[in-house]
């Protein structure tokens, strides 16, 4: 089995190399300021698709945690949300690069850029919330609740807000590339290949992350003997302090 996995890893590496080479052999795209750099699109396009799929999957895992209170669902949700954030970051980074190459500025507060930045802020807030709660059960339930509450605004910011009439008019970012059949021929095949490779990679990373998360759960816990840095003392709790004994000196 281990040998098979090793071969599969090699196969994946070869496929990734082949798709990368293929992406450089296709003719430059028409209608761009710098056509050769339009290849950034091969990564810019599949990442939000995978991010959305993983984001919705995280929503399902969060719901399952709240319904069952099985901590394994929280581990799965955390793994999925981490991968989602990575895909959002790659989308944002490739978008910023594309903006500089095509529109001549790294950041221009385009509605699509800004709405995506807000999505990232929601995800960072999710991690901030997780990091601020020490108790594992409470951390799991609160972060699941926050994620489900944030899912609506996230989908609104990605799919509805940039398509609002007033917003779409003032944005340079295209919103109808697929609907209008602008992605076709070899470009469409390369995007599909990139999407497939990124899906395989994310499934693999997800599996590893969940495995590591479940192993961490099996670690022995020392209960109250451990110092919990995330929790603050409950106000009525009075912690004992050491007072120097002056009579001994």
């Amino acid at each position: 089995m281990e040998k098979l996995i090793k071969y599969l890893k090699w196969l994946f590496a070869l496929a990734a190399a082949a798709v990368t080479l293929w992406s450089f052999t296709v003719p430059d795209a028409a209608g761009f300021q710098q056509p050769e750099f339009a290849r950034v699109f091969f990564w810019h396009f599949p990442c939000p698709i995978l991010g959305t799929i993983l984001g919705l999957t995280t929503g399902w895992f969060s719901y399952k945690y709240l319904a069952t209170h099985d901590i394994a669902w929280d581990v799965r949700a955390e793994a999925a949300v981490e991968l989602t954030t990575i895909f959002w970051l790659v989308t944002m980074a490739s978008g910023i690069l594309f903006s500089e190459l095509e529109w001549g500025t790294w950041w221009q507060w385009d509605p699509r850029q800004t709405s995506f930045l807000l999505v990232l802020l929601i995800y960072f807030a999710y991690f901030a919330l997780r990091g601020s709660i020490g108790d594992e059960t409470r951390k799991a339930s609160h972060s699941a609740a926050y994620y489900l509450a944030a899912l609506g605004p996230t989908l609104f910011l990605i799919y509805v807000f940039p398509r609002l009439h007033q917003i779409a008019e003032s944005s340079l970012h295209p919103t109808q590339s697929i609907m209008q059949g602008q992605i076709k021929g070899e470009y469409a095949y390369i995007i599909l290949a990139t999407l497939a490779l990124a899906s395989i990679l994310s499934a693999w990373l997800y599996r590893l992350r969940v495995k590591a998360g479940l192993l961490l759960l099996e670690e022995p816990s020392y209960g109250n003997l451990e110092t919990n840095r995330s929790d603050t003392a409950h106000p009525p709790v009075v912690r004992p302090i050491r007072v120097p004994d002056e009579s001994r000196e």
Partner: protein
Amino acid sequence: MNSIWAEIGAVVRKEALTEMRARNGIATSALFALVTVVAIALATFNRTIDKDMASGLLWVAILFAAVITLPRVMVTEEEQGTADLLRMLARPEAVYWGKCIFNGCQIMAASFILSFLFFGFTHVGLESPGLFALSVFGGSMGLAGSATMCGALVARAANRAMLAGAIAVPLLLPLVALGVSGMRVAIGPIEADFVYDAGVRAVIGLDCYGIATLAIGVLIFPFAWKS
């Protein structure tokens, strides 16, 4: 067992009595409104604020007034040790609706005071009071729903005061975007019918967003409240 309406009424009454006794929330909101408007008036001294800028500034001020005051209603329950009693006496849904109604009224009052001061100090006119009122109403619903929910989530976390703002603001920014679109038209001048229609659509969107926030909040709140 009491009906849910009685429980909601009791929670709202408790919040109102607590507020009247301490006057923390209203005093903080009013002071914040005054300070914000004076700061804006000072920053734009001798200049005319255009309607786009005015609607944005006003909504940012309302947003921060909400984020500063609203999560307090949940956080103080934990700080004063009264949350467990409330858990025993009322259903989570009743607590959520009670706190939301109180928070909604509080932020609506704060928003109107803030707007009144803002329009007075900056000499920006208001062309469509109806659209403005609907915009503030929808915004208040959404702000109350999200801030109450976020308050419950951070109530027992470390650095809760800062965290409440950090997790609530990203959720509220889509609402602010819709609010700004509606307010921009309400401030005017309304040059054509289609401009007014766009404002009405934005305000309807804002009200729907507020209702959706409350509906999602009531489904999720019990999990945060009981754990």
